[in-house]
């Protein structure tokens, strides 16, 4: 479904009636916590220290199956070489719900940007020095939908998709209002997987 809500707002709304522990994977500045109600036990996880949990998603996560009620991974998986393994791992450790968002790098505004500049964004740059964190996959709408649905169904989950229209540029703001398919309008795709 199309929405102009942010990925954080959607997650906050969808977990409003739930209790238990929520793990925010790739939490960065823990911004998601601001959108959650106080009845949830929030845990942040990232590859760097100063989080509740320090996980390297390129490796298996060392916790049992269904360890956390809710797992959230917003714009994280595309940074990983082992994206398939990481997705299966967050699916494995989520007991009730898993939220995954991925950027749609083939929305029309980015296609036009690439046509004009030959540059898809700073996250894909090959710089003179190795920059470490970056996007390791050109995540296109059709492929991310197939990828998420395939493995969620294999794990016995059902998927709800949110096509988030809000982007970061003026051209995208205009394009996202046109009567076009979701693959061209959505800037980010958020999946809610219920097990």
């Amino acid at each position, binding site marked *: 479904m199309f929405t102009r809500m942010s990925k954080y707002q959607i997650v906050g709304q969808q977990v409003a009636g739930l209790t238990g522990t929520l793990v925010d994977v790739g939490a960065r500045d823990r911004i998601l916590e601001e959108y959650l109600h106080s009845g949830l036990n929030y845990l942040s996880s990232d590859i760097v220290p100063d989080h509740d949990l320090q996980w390297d998603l390129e490796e298996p996560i060392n916790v049992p199956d269904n360890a956390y009620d809710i797992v959230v991974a917003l714009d994280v998986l595309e940074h990983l*070489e*082992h*994206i*398939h*393994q990481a997705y299966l791992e967050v699916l494995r450790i989520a007991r009730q719900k898993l939220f995954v968002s991925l950027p749609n790098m*083939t929305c029309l505004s980015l*296609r*036009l940007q*690439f*046509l004009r500049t*030959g*540059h*898809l964004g700073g996250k*894909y*740059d*090959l*710089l*003179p*020095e*190795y920059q470490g964190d970056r996007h*390791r*996959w*050109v*995540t*296109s*709408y*059709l*492929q*991310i939908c*197939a*990828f998420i649905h*395939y*493995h969620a169904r294999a794990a016995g989950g059902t998927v709800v998709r949110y096509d988030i229209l809000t982007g970061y540029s003026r051209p995208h703001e205009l394009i996202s209002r046109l009567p076009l398919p979701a*693959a061209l309008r959505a800037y980010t795709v958020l999946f809610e997987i219920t097990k």
Partner: protein
Amino acid sequence: MKIPRTYVIRNKYRVVGDILLDAEGSLLDVGARDCRLAAELDPERLKYYSADVSGGHDCRLDLEQKLGLPDQAFDYVVALDVLEHVEHIHQAFHELARIARRSLIVGLPNMATLSRRWLFLWHGHLDTQKYDLGLEHPGDRHRWLTVYPQINAFVEANGPRASFNLERVVEQIEGRYVFRAMAHLVVRAGLLPAGWLTGRCIYVMTRR
């Protein structure tokens, strides 16, 4: 100093064969695949060795790791369309430079040619499956979106750091049949911005 650039419509193996016309000694072809390059070299002058991550080659090399070869082990090291497959592309470049005694030749694709930009606009892909997110991990794939200005800057910065001078760049014009010849003329006449029709850059570096 401005780096000399030439524009060609020959395939990459012939280009390297021409570059190494008078070369003598040993050559390591990294990411050799079917050893196609060997057919373009004079075996009387150059002793050809193939290397790849898979078996069936003279050397088995994993470019994601430090190469288990001595410094300057080969007179010439060639890596055509290889580095963009490697996550640790910077380390791999410096390892190739370390084992090259005289010359290092590196080819990198330009994924932002005009035709690829149009394809991306209309179809949302770059005319290759090397960037696809499939249902299973594909193993080998392009791990970097190599575009013209960035591959130039990458080689221009890292060549000197590895004690190599960038002698020249051979730009391979993309396209097929008569269109490639026309594109060649357009590029040589400077009618389009640099890199729009260049499908691949082949960088020729020599040790200082």
